[in-house]
């Protein structure tokens, strides 16, 4: 059940961020071509790429990286450590990581709400580009990975890859 749920979450996140990644490649290439061949840049390219595409490309897949055990850590932990200590350590790490991601989520949410109230925008050659919605990508991404890590404390084997959670060094 839980695995199926997280696998769906992963599919959605990857589909969203992947679409944005492709859009970003096409958008910048089109902008380059338009500037070079038609002397006509696509208005707002830098703002869209920086504020919208980049936030989605980086923060949406956080949980997907966790589900694939791709968040990097140092593997100096002794292999002969007893199993109970091993699991205790991992549970501690998940709890700590989860807490920090929720702290990030809470703070970036506060910032996003403030930016929305201020109606945050950037002035570009095209005029005014509203950017406040992009601030909500961060708390969203942080909450998803925070929840995933909390779930792992109860149910350690949620990873999508064949790797065992405890040997993914």
């Amino acid at each position, binding site marked *: 059940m839980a695995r199926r749920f997280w696998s769906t979450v992963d599919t959605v996140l990857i589909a969203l961020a992947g679409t944005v990644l492709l859009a970003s490649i096409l958008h910048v290439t089109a902008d380059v071509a338009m500037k070079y061949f038609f002397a006509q840049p696509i208005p707002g390219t830098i703002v869209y790429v920086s504020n919208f595409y980049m936030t989605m490309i980086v923060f949406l897949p956080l949980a997907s990286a966790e589900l694939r055990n791709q968040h990097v850590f140092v593997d100096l932990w002794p292999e002969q450590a007893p199993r109970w200590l091993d699991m205790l350590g991992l549970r501690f790490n998940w709890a700590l990581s989860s807490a920090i991601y929720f702290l990030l989520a809470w703070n970036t949410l506060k910032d996003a709400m403030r930016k929305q109230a*201020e109606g945050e925008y950037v002035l570009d050659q095209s005029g005014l580009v509203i950017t406040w919605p992009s601030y909500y990508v961060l708390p969203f991404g942080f909450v998803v990975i925070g929840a995933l890590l909390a779930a792992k404390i109860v149910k350690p084997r949620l990873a999508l890859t064949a790797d065992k959670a405890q040997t993914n060094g």
Partner: protein
Amino acid sequence: KDLTMAPGFAAGSTVSLGAEAFTSRVNELTDGEITFTTHDLTLLSVPQMLNGVRDGVADVGVVLPMVFAAQFKESNLIGDLAMMGKNAAAMAGATTEYMMTCDLCLAEYANNNVVYLGSGSTPDYAILSTKPFTSLEDIKGSKLRSPNATFNRWVENFGGVALTLPGNEIFEAVKQGVVDGALLSAGELYNIRMIDVVKHVTLGVPGGTYNLINIATVNRDTWQGLTEDQRQAMIDASAHAIAVTTVGYMTDATKAIEEAKTQGIEVHEASSELVQATADFVSEDLAQIATLAAERGVEDAETKIARFEELVGKWEKLMEGVEPTADNLSAVYKSEIFDKLDTAEFGM
């Protein structure tokens, strides 16, 4: 009392020198009661500055309101009027006087929990390029990097293509021919090493300055925790700091142009035809600026523009014959603006 200063620019840059002038002057005027720890680039970057000073990450920071468009609608109307002036010393004075006597502007700072203490200005923008830009025809069909929407309209008005590029890409873009040139103050020949790539410098156009460099923007809680004497020291130090910054930029530009000449870069003056056409554009564009400001929710922009125009005129007269040294400018800023502030009330 030890306070934190965050210039957000590299040590040794003109802005950092201004920040340093502020901190050392405050220290001197308070007989050492207030000391500063300065973190040039490590504590807050330019886009992090407003939140950082607001929340007390730094007690004082260099805030550029143009970077925070939504938070400084009123102030940025004045930033958009940059093309009105050519004289940095006058623009710094006019801008600071406008802000200090504009309740809506000061309220914007208060809403962000910071206190405004004056603005420095760059000298007029020139064209740093790989080909000359002296006539109307030179601009037609050329690609120019422009700093903001106002300058974009100037480029497009003469049939050129205006491109937006982040500061750290201007050098490469000019070097590789992505753009034919960049609208920059001549001091950038040094500051971002444009001297290594450009072949021509055209002076006189587009004109206009970057006139909203708020060297000392103070966290409001910090401000209100100071004694009246200490606040007075900060006010006086800020008059000095914006003078140092503005003079610094002016000297940078003069020195850079001399250096460019010795390196075989051709320095041109724009043709009188282009200068006149630019002046016509600037006065026609005021209506556009007013409309755009109204769209962003600035009321009665025409009156505000007229008032600023008047101040620019006043300050250009005031600065006539004043030799641009930090002490001279700071004396005029003090007597015309800063001495009129009510220290007991200001920013409280």
